[in-house]
């Protein structure tokens, strides 16, 4: 098998990186090397920024309808290559095909929403703000933007930003995850196929050196980031230092509260996807079940019974329900958390360590793992594990459940399972988290809503997707007019 050396895409051309630093990209189910990715230098980043800057003026003068038509073409090309895009995700990330298809669909939905830019970008005005004076607010593109993407949704996450940015008339640079760069490579093949004008979209593979070069460059207007909290905090500070706008979606530790009146069967089914889907490597994954009162015993048993039945394996096999984690290092780190949980006194109800998947002896597999007797002070309750490990905390009542949630520095998502409208409303009203689920395990906002988040889960004010994205990628110019 020939191992593909990935290229950068700059100024409408595929270019070989001159970097001396390269990384292997592995298939997590087999440990095979499937590609090599360059860790581009600052000079290569500067070339991408120059191309994007040079393309900006022409692109911003292109009418919104024409820009929108590029997005329609992009959507159509993605539909045509849908299975290929989904399979690339499975190959480099390990998630199952259904999840990969869901990811591509979510990405396409963002392209569809952004294609509405002729309406979304309209400004507003008012006559006679004073005698004979009119005032209007105009939305204008701001320049060159970039995104730094995570490994866990290698196709979708850049699409929370890129379609909106270019729809608004900006030009764009994507720095994909160096662990999962293939999906963006494919997406840029599509952007090339649909004949985007050179420089409007650019792809630079790389790591911290490339990211720092983007943030330090005076011609970059802003950054969108999705990843861990320490990196998000660093990038947000660095963006501010260099006078750039930034939206940094960061880590999470999401709680799933179960009230005694919850529909147990539906709740448990929903939790399986939430905790173990994408092998727990989602920023919206349910990491802690907060069982209220007498629901604890039956819920605990049902969760274990259900999790035991999850079929772990290679995501290309459609009968599989959970794939491997991203890397050997991630696997070791997650196992370290399981050991820590045991040391700190939690009870292991289901142990996913040492799972063997027939035909894939070298894969980074870990079975569903469930702890009970977890307390909010334990490491496994405080830190983001980013793996298929679910902890159960038993609390007396609703208020104590909220205390558990609020003791976390994170505020990405939280869900409640109940058949009471009162508890649902109370939860929605009081809980400090950005994405709320009521009888929903993964509170993932669709493309026309912002992907929210608060506390240490988000640094910035405007989020990705929807109207927030339009606001983020535009300047508001206010014009006050009087004619003599």
């Amino acid at each position, binding site marked *: 098998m020939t191992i593909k050396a990935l290229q950068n895409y700059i100024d409408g051309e595929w270019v070989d990186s001159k970097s001396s630093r390269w990384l292997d990209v592995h298939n997590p189910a087999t440990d095979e090397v499937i590609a090599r990715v360059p860790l581009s230098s600052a000079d290569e980043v500067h070339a991408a920024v120059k191309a994007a800057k040079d393309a900006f003026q022409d692109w911003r003068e292109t009418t919104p309808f024409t820009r929108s038509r590029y997005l329609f073409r992009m959507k159509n090309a993605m539909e045509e290559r849908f299975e290929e895009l989904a399979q690339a995700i499975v190959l480099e990330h390990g998630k199952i095909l259904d999840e990969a298809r869901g990811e591509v669909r979510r990405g396409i939905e963002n392209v569809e929403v952004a294609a509405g830019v002729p309406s979304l970008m309209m400004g507003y005005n008012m006559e006679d703000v004073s005698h004979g004076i009119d005032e209007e607010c105009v939305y204008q593109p701001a320049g060159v933007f970039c995104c730094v993407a995570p490994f866990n949704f290698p196709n979708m996450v850049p699409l929370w930003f890129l379609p909106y940015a270019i729809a608004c008339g900006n030009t764009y640079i994507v720095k994909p995850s160096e662990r999962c760069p293939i999906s963006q490579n494919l997406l840029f093949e599509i952007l090339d196929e649909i004949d985007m004008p050179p420089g409007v979209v650019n792809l630079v593979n790389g790591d911290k050196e490339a990211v720092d070069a983007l943030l330090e460059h005076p011609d970059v207007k802003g950054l969108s980031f999705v990843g861990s909290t320490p990196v998000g905090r660093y990038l947000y500070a660095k963006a501010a230092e260099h006078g750039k706008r930034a939206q940094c979606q960061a880590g999470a530790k999401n709680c799933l509260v179960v009230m005694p009146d919850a529909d147990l069967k539906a709740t448990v089914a929903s939790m399986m*996807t939430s905790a173990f889907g994408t092998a727990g490597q989602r920023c919206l994954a349910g990491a802690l079940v907060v069982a209220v009162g007498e629901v604890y015993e039956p819920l605990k048993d049902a969760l274990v019974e259900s999790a035991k039945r999850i079929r772990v394996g290679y995501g290309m096999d459609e009968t599989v329900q959970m794939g491997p984690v991203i890397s050997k290092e991630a696997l070791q780190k997650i196992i370290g958390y399981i050991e820590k949980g045991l040391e700190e006194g939690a009870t292991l109800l289901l142990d996913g360590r040492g799972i063997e998947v027939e035909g894939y002896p070298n894969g980074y597999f870990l079975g569903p793992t469930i702890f009970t007797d977890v307390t909010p002070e334990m490491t496994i309750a405080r830190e983001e594990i980013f793996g298929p490990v679910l902890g159960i905390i038993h609390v007396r009542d609703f208020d104590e459940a909220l205390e558990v949630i609020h003791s976390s520095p994170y505020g990405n998502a939280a869900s409640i399972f109940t058949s009471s409208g009162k508890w649902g409303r109370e939860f929605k009203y009081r809980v400090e988290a950005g994405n709320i689920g009521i009888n929903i395990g993964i509170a993932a906002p669709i493309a026309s809503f912002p992907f929210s988040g608060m506390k240490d889960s988000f640094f910035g004010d405007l989020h990705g997707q929807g109207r927030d994205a339009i606001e983020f990628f535009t300047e508001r110019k206010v014009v006050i007019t009087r004619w003599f």
Partner: protein
Amino acid sequence: MELATFGAIMSFAIEMEQRALGFFHEAATREGLGVRFGEMANRARKRLARAERARREGVAEMILESIEGLRSEDFEIDLSPGADESQLLEQAATLAETASRFYHQAASKVPIKEVSRLLGRMAREWEQQLSDLQQMSP
């Protein structure tokens, strides 16, 4: 094989329609069956496109809950387009009965309303096809 995921169910449906399309297409070359089997091939082609579209568009990340109680072994079909006319009609009827049974069951399991409705519609189409076939005599 357990059809425990949305993708597994839809891929099974796609495979079934592909096989149906191949079968009707080939059988349509036989004298006496040409027109009707040709129509059935066209219907299978339409259903195939629909199933592919549903697999592409129907999957939503937030409702990937595991599905229980569907196994591919319960819907196995043996098709040999080289058989004689009466056997072909018999096979076509078995296919229609199996497919409608599969789609009915799948429709009740898939938790995505739009797709569930579509699967129900496909079940009814296969039922109609079965009834048409029963009225055909070799």
